[in-house]
């Protein structure tokens, strides 16, 4: 466990001495900041949009968190591509593999390091709607549910990205594959919205429902609407753990 912590700290340190991490932080902060300012302006120009059910928290917070997920879609592949693909390309992975750290410790350490960085990005996004508390009463429960959802989405994206990064030795390939996979998850959600039930051999297949159950974005959406169900949280935990486990298996296959 100590070793995993060492690896996580090392990963974080390497991120913060590289311009990439700072640039990504700055760009995502700029984009989410502009969206936050735009949605506030929109609200002040059209105050009638605030109704009985949708308050400032739902409109500003929900919109911002949805947009932050899109930003993550672009940020996470750039972070995860460095981890295994690049280390394999430079040969630095040999240092970890010949050390007394187990593969599980290596994967958990890398994951924790990246999550540490992403949590900083997360905190900067979270501060924006929370800063409205000075001006207006907020639905903290709704915001908290949305924030937990955002953090869980980060973890899931990160685990998927790590796994795809462990498959190749080309960082760009890992990034493109991760971007593609994350977008596929998005499309999956579109299928669930279509209520598509094709009839095969006389049986209606509830593809729409299946897609909704499997789609990462669908589970996130429930949390964004303030519906905090343990099933959604469990979905994200299982998703993340599965891909971390697959990464360990993939790295072990490298030795054989």
């Amino acid at each position, binding site marked *: 466990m100590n070793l995993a912590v060492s690896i996580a700290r090392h990963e974080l340190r390497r991120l913060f001495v590289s311009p990439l991490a700072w640039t990504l932080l700055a760009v995502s902060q700029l984009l989410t900041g502009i969206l936050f300012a735009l949605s506030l302006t929109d609200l002040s120009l059209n105050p009638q949009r605030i109704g009985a059910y949708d308050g400032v928290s739902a409109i500003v917070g929900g919109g911002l968190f949805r947009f932050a997920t899109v930003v993550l879609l672009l940020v996470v592949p750039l972070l995860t591509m460095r981890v295994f693909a690049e280390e394999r390309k430079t*040969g*630095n*992975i*040999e*240092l970890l*593999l*010949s*050390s007394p*750290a187990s593969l599980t410790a290596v994967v958990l350490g890398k994951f924790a390091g990246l999550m540490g960085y992403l949590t900083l990005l997360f905190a900067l996004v979270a501060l924006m709607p929370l800063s409205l508390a000075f001006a207006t009463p907020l639905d903290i429960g709704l915001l908290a549910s949305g924030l937990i959802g955002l953090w869980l989405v980060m973890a899931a994206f990160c685990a998927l990205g790590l796994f795809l990064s462990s498959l190749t030795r080309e960082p760009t390939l890992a990034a493109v594959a991760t971007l593609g996979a994350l977008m596929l998850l998005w499309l999956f959600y579109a299928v669930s919205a279509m209520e598509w039930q094709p009839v095969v051999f006389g049986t209606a297949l509830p593809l729409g429902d299946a897609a909704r159950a499997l789609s990462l974005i669908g589970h996130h959406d429930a949390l964004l609407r303030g519906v905090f169900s343990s099933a959604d949280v469990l979905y994200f935990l299982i998703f993340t753990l599965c891909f971390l486990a697959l990464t360990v298996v993939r790295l072990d296959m490298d030795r054989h």
Partner: protein
Amino acid sequence: MESDLKLSAQGLIRDYAGRRAVNDIDIRLAAGEVLGLLGPNGAGKTTTLRMLAGTLAPSAGRILLAGHDMARAPQQAKRHLGYLPERPPVYDELTVDEYLAFCARLHGVERAKRADAITRAKADCGLEAVGRRLIGHLSKGYQQRVGIAQAIVHRPDVLILDEPTAGLDPNQLRGIRELVGRLAEAHSVIVSSHILSEIQAVAHRVMILHRGRVVLDEALADAEARDDRVIDIGLRAGPDRSTLAALPGVETVEPLGDGRWRITAAPGRDIRGSLAETAVHNGWHLVELTTHAPDLETRFAELTRSAEHTTAVAS
């Protein structure tokens, strides 16, 4: 005897997609010994070393490192190992101190001893002056030293250095060579190279690999002592091969053309005097008599060439 061995590997085999890269290699490394692994490019040196370092699983065979089985207890075994891969595994964006601190933590050096361990590793590798510089800004030779410092920071029993002198200029080369010599005082070392003089300069024992097999494994002192037995002789009016072969103390005779012969004496016999006397007595017109002393280089060339020939015939 077994307990003296810091590292022992038996019957190592490694297949890559049907191609056998390493075929049945046994390695035994005693405490304080420096083993030189020599072979042409593609002989299986790196594959062998990666298996010993635990980054590659052997297809068959068993590795014991300081008494721990690499397959069953890899964590314990790797605690006793320092490994410098072909390319030094350094992070360009970190300073030497930051990097070594991470390596020390990674190898479980206790917090209280960490600063000491880093200072010692830097002193051993001549890195005192560059501790605060970025590794990416250092020259290739210094990066190589940082790679070695990484391998010794936790004072392992066994040190595996894969081509530590590759790509260095002559001065850096001498520096690394002296460093390996110093390290041998406290560690058992396996060092690989495709350059013979590198191995001769540092190793106690040499192992020549060719096409994944061991073609020579002996102490360097023995390898060089045997050389006195080979004599080159030039006879202008010389006899035929069988006459020479029948002389007392002669083991083999090989014609070199133009009246010159290469004669190998039976072990432990110096036949130079009697050979000269016989030549003069029989009127063979002796024009040359030298000990041939084929150095390791010739033997290396012969071994790797003849093995090639046998494989060609076998396949």
